[in-house]
């Protein structure tokens, strides 16, 4: 079993997978850092962007953009077996005689679908649960702790919607954020968010107003905690103003 070391990026992984296809070997594991030199059968694979682009175009031509997006989503899912799953998925797609992306009798297709469903649900939850507070620099700032690494997937939605305001969404679990400067989105690494911004007092008034609205919108005769928790699990309450 050879261990391919890649640079930790999606493009790096695709380069390593492409290398396995080219060498026609079966038993390969993928890793990011050669943590222990016990494995003398480790090999570092360079990231080749030209090759990656050719593979991606090949995948799209054989199947669709959705397949590529699905592979990327699996990468962001942080599952320990993510590299193996993406490898198996791309191999099936590229080497089957016809396009099998919708053959749900194949376990790998179902597995990819299931992981993408989880990712999509988390993305949708972030669209819903991100709560901005305007700071002293007029930047609308929000903090989240998503189950998966979905920040790369949510920027476009917020860019379209809040095209005329500065905004910043920080993933406290993973210590990085996305910042929109009215022209484009940038990824920002931060070590301590709280030192970065001050929230003016007026912001508190809006939070109170929202809490007031939230309370009034409930119909107590229909109270249903089970249903409520199914829609808003407790782990999201931390950054929801109305749940404070």
């Amino acid at each position, binding site marked *: 079993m050879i261990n391919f070391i890649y640079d930790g990026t999606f493009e790096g992984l695709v380069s390593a997978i492409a290398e396995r296809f080219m060498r026609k070997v079966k038993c390969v594991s993928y890793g990011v850092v050669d943590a222990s030199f016990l494995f003398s059968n480790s090999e570092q694979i360079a990231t080749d962007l030209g090759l990656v682009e050719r593979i991606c175009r090949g995948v799209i031509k054989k199947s669709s953009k959705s397949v590529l997006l699905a592979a990327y989503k699996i990468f962001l899912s942080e599952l320990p077996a993510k590299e193996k799953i993406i490898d198996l998925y791309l191999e099936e797609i590229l080497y089957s005689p016809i396009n099998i992306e*919708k053959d749900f009798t194949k376990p790998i297709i179902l597995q990819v679908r299931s992981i993408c469903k989880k990712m999509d649900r988390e993305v949708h939850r972030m*669209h819903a649960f991100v709560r901005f507070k305007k700071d002293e620099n007029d930047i609308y700032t929000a903090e989240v702790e998503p189950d998966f690494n979905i920040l790369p997937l949510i920027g476009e939605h917020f860019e379209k*919607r809040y095209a005329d305001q500065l905004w910043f969404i920080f993933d406290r679990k993973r210590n990085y954020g996305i910042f929109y400067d009215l022209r484009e989105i940038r990824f920002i690494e931060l070590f301590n968010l709280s030192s970065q911004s001050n929230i003016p007092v007026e912001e508190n008034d809006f939070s109170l*107003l929202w809490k007031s609205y939230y309370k009034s919108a409930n119909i107590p005769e229909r109270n249903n*905690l089970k249903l409520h928790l*199914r*829609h808003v699990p407790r782990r999201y309450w931390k950054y929801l103003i109305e749940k404070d």
Partner: protein
Amino acid sequence: MNWERVREKLSILADAAKYDVSCASSGSSRKNKTKTIGNSEGMGICHTYTEDGRCVSLLKILLSNHCIFDCAYCVSRKSIDKKRVAFSVEEVVEITINFYRRNYIEGLFLSSGIFKSPDYTMERLVKIAKTLREIHLFNGYIHLKGIPGSSKDLCNEAAKYADRVSFNLEIPTTEFLKRIAPEKNHSVVYDSMDFLQKEMNIKKEESPDELYLPAGQSTQLIVGASPESDLQIISLAEELYKNKNLKRVYYSGYVPVSNDSRLPVISKPPLIRENRLYQADWLIRFYGFNANEILDERSPFLDEKLDPKMAYAMRHPEMFPIDVNDAGYFKILRIPGLGIKTAKMIVQSRKFGKIRAEHLRKMGVAWNRAKYFLVCADHFAPQFNANTKDFLLTQTSQLQLFS
């Protein structure tokens, strides 16, 4: 803003608006082409849920809870002793924009009690929508309540600025509406619905790129305030969908808000019945069922214990079993224990080879229920007997959320 005063008004006017259960923020196609604020295309978003489990998608408020009408089922009816307040146009605009910027809401749902006259009220609702669109260049979702009796000109104006407009029928049949809310009448509601439907068709032909009520119309029926059967309710809904092109009908379980003798005395709202009506509604809109297949004169009420699709399957054993490797999509949809996503997967996958029981189970079919109604490459539906029906009754899981 006088924060305390605004907070008080918001509490009162949000509380009064919550019985209008329409909650959708989807179905529009309003893109942010101007790089200003807001974007409303595609899927709606539920930004939070209240403790009763219902979604909060829009800022849903009355402009004012003053009302010249006295409808028995309404919390804001004239004869009730209550604090009456009103927002100014500027206040509504200010709150909407600021809530939107903070990602609390998808947009605004604006209704009102009728003060002075229907036209006077509707004019102010339209003014708020117009201000949001033209002065603030707001592309978020706006749902305006149609005030019954307002002029066609104002309806037309509303359609220019709103994504959706709704006129509520409330009581399903005219006979009972007359008894409970004598100042209202259905013909006024239908007139406005028909007018907008006609205008929308004209606009689609003449200026298809112009946004004119892109998310269409909806309405609400109150369930349990009057004695109509479920068959009457879903037949009405079907008619509204097919002939008046409505996008949604909402069913709102009657919440007892008054001691008026014209209304039934109930201890809690009919939530299970409401849930079954939504399931029946889904069968009509997405599963290809007709109202008269779901219910008929002999059984005009939906079964409380069984979901309507299962109830249909048990009443029509001659239609089953259905072969998943052979039958068309809409036939497959009739198999209890599988839904639209699974039916689509089945139809897509069988091109590659015969579907077997293990495939169906992995796709998420509720096998314990479905196996009695289908055939696949390695499975034939077992015989239906007296015990089967009892067994199937224990398998229904949806009601756990409402018990």
